[in-house]
């Protein structure tokens, strides 16, 4: 074994708090590196000019006014789901059931629109839709929470399973309500009367959703950081024993928090079905229940930071689908680029928390 002096040793040590500008400089550098690596990758695999590809991505996200609105709408829904799962994750409750909670909220909305449309005044219908979608999501999130609080079941598996139940339930109801018979889909609900369609602000189809989620962001921020309930969530998440020691009823907090989490996912379902799509399918959640987990973790559960992280993910996904259409590439290629960029951004957190250095043993003796 060589144990001679004068040899350098790779050394990882934890950093103290880094000033915010240094942290952002590291993140910025990570994005630049990511773009370079993706560029090399693009050129090597497709022979295309990477700059052109990047331009197309930006074009895909911001190219026209319509595209900007779609970007805003997607951002709003993703952010809504991310805000919804945040209290649960802050409590260290692994809610991967956002998908199912969105679906069930959407299903409740659709049920109200189909069954009550034109039977009750529109304003009342919308109130009923809001209440039932939030309630449906809350119940869907509450069931795993109750079992967790009572019997300490595994919430990850439980919420995941609830996704499948929700998907099958929607699939079943789509057949029940299909229009026309045998079509296998519902189509636009109340197309003529627009009963139960959420009101449109001016001529902007997506503005309502964006405003609702913007308000929700602010509310969630203060709920988590300033309210007593938010404080309880942090304590339970950090240590259940500490929570019990100070007399917090852990089971109650778990159920309450998950009902809030599920309820807000249900609200996202309402915005999708009542606000924009006006129909329901099994794929309406579009994986947002899972993407939201990443958004929330990337933002370290800060609602305002989540605006940026969800923007990043939506931008990447919009850009990726644009380059697949423009260059006729396989859709997987867009996903590869997205993957590379996310890898660098997530990886940069390591360099923000730790310092790498090469130490040299000087070997000068005494």
């Amino acid at each position, binding site marked *: 074994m060589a144990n001679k*002096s004068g040899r350098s*040793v790779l050394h990882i040590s*934890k950093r*103290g708090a880094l000033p915010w500008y240094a942290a952002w400089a590291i993140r910025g550098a990570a994005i630049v590196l990511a773009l370079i690596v993706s560029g090399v990758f693009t050129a090597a695999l497709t022979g295309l000019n990477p700059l052109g590809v990047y331009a197309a991505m930006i074009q895909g996200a911001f190219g026209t006014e319509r595209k900007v609105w779609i970007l805003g709408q997607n951002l709003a829904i993703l952010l809504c789901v991310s805000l919804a799962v945040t209290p649960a994750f802050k409590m260290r409750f692994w809610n991967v059931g956002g998908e199912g909670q969105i679906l069930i909220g959407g299903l409740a909305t659709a049920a109200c629109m189909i069954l009550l449309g034109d039977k009750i005044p529109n304003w009342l219908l919308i109130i009923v839709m809001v209440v039932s979608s939030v309630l449906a999501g809350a119940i869907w999130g509450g069931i795993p929470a109750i079992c967790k609080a009572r019997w300490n079941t595994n919430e990850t598996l439980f919420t995941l399973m609830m996704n499948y139940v929700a998907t099958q339930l929607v699939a079943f109801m789509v057949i029940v309500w299909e229009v026309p018979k045998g079509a296998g889909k519902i189509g636009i609900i109340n197309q003529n009367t627009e009963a139960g369609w959420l009101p449109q602000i001016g001529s902007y189809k997506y503005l309502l959703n964006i405003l609702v989620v913007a308000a929700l962001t602010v509310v969630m921020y203060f709920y988590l950081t300033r309210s*007593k309930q938010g*404080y309880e969530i942090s304590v339970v998440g950090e240590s259940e024993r*500490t929570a019990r020691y100070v*007399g917090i009823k852990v089971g109650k907090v778990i159920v309450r928090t998950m009902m809030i989490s599920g309820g807000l996912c249900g609200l996202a379902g309402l915005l999708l079905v009542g606000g924009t799509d006006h129909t329901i399918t099994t794929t309406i959640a579009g994986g947002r229940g899972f993407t939201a987990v990443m958004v929330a973790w990337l933002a370290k559960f800060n609602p305002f930071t989540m605006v940026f992280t969800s923007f990043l993910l939506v931008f990447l996904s919009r850009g990726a689908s644009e380059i697949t259409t423009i260059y006729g590439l396989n859709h997987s290629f867009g996903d590869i680029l997205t993957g590379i960029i996310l890898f660098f951004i997530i990886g940069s957190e390591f360099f923000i928390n730790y310092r790498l250095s090469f130490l040299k043993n000087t*070997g000068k003796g005494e």
Partner: protein
Amino acid sequence: MENSTAVVKMRNITKRFGPVLANDRVWLDIYKGEILALLGENGSGKTTLMNMLSGIYFPDEGQIFINEEEAVIRSPKDAFRYGIGMIHQHFKLVDVLTAAENIVLGLKEPGRLDMDKVAEKVKRICDAYGFDVDPYQKIYNMSVSQKQTVEIVKVLYRGADILILDEPTAVLTPQETEKLFAVLRNMRDDGKAIVIITHKMHEVEELSDRVAILRHGQFVGDMLTKMTNAQEMTNMMVGRPVTLNIERPDPVNPKPRIEVEGLTVRDPEGTVKLDNVSFTACSGEILGIAGISGCGQKELLEAIAGLQPAEKGSIRYVTDDGVREELIGKDPLSIADMGVCLSFVPEDRLGMGLVGSMDLTDNMMLRSFRRGRSFFTDRKNPRVLAEKVVKDLEVNTPGVSTPVRRLSGGNVQKVLVGREISSAPSVLLTAYAVRGLDINSSYTIYDLINQQKKSGVAVIFVGEDLDVLLELCDRILVLCGGKVSGIVEGRGASKPEVGMMMTRLGGKTNG
């Protein structure tokens, strides 16, 4: 000592954690055939320094020489190659394996593994130094002291000549400590170098040949133990003269405050943890609880605090007017709602008493955050309280916005005790209030507890250091296997007497 050779020379060792300088150009020599006691306050860098020797940390600067040759120790494996072994405070053993299996775990010896041969070698080591280990016994059947013995044998099996023990006596009874010391002396006489980190001065005086003292990460000095005394060592550690007496004022007007009768508690596995325990704790006095660790101390305090369901018995709180109220079946919140102000300093500071990732302010509000009708929390008063605790108890922290996890053990404890006594309690429960704390912090805590006693609080003090219990407490309740072995007056009780009661009910020998 002068004619023996230094097996380890640490030169200019510096280690930083972020902005914190844990070790600052430390020089330390360790000799063969000698027991070195490494002393210093909490956060003075003792454990950090030893961790660099045992390969857990790597020094930022400086050199280590083993037998006059420069050594690069990057992992515990490297450390073993140099014959360095460390016995940590927390044992690292696999419960379901036997002693011998744990001892060879991780060793890559060529050829087939022959457990009988291993057992034979283990036996040889045990015989040489006077250990008492059955190589075929499973770890989960062992007492704490047996587990510690396995850890020591594990290190010796790997051929260690330099042994480092981090607070080895914290978990032992006086009798077990004696046994350990005898073994350590045998090893010293066999030519091994032994470093022991401890806070207990009488152990240093009893066991070590030489002491080395660190203060704020710097090496202050070393000397032969027989040339110095506890007072001088403490002064060097703290950097200024310190008085080493625990005061014990007479209780003023003691009245029953907590009456425990026939308390029986089982853990979730159904094991009886407390068996028919009865006693009374009075206001204005300190009731000490002595016992080997795990004899029901934790369950007793948690049962009083409303955190542990009881199977049988009663715990009654006696108000100033003589009204008795049952505490069993109530959770901490409903106990507080009854107007009973009960403070509890639990053993597990960061896992139960505090939230490590939260700052001082947020930890101050753990108890009080529900106050007021507002939906939102009030952070102004907790902030004021945090600043007051920092100032009054001399908590060493960059500020009240620092997560408590970043503070050293003594400071964490000060924050916890500070919060618990800030609510002007009528009952104060403390579990191992000074565990891992240096002398200076320990005395601060004793003072705080005495102040509470003087203001009429009923203090229940679970301790592990018998010397402290005997000096501090008015009465001492001794637990043995979940039963009350006896209650003795703190004034006049002798250490062997209490020690015997800890190991045997009633403390009587069977001839």
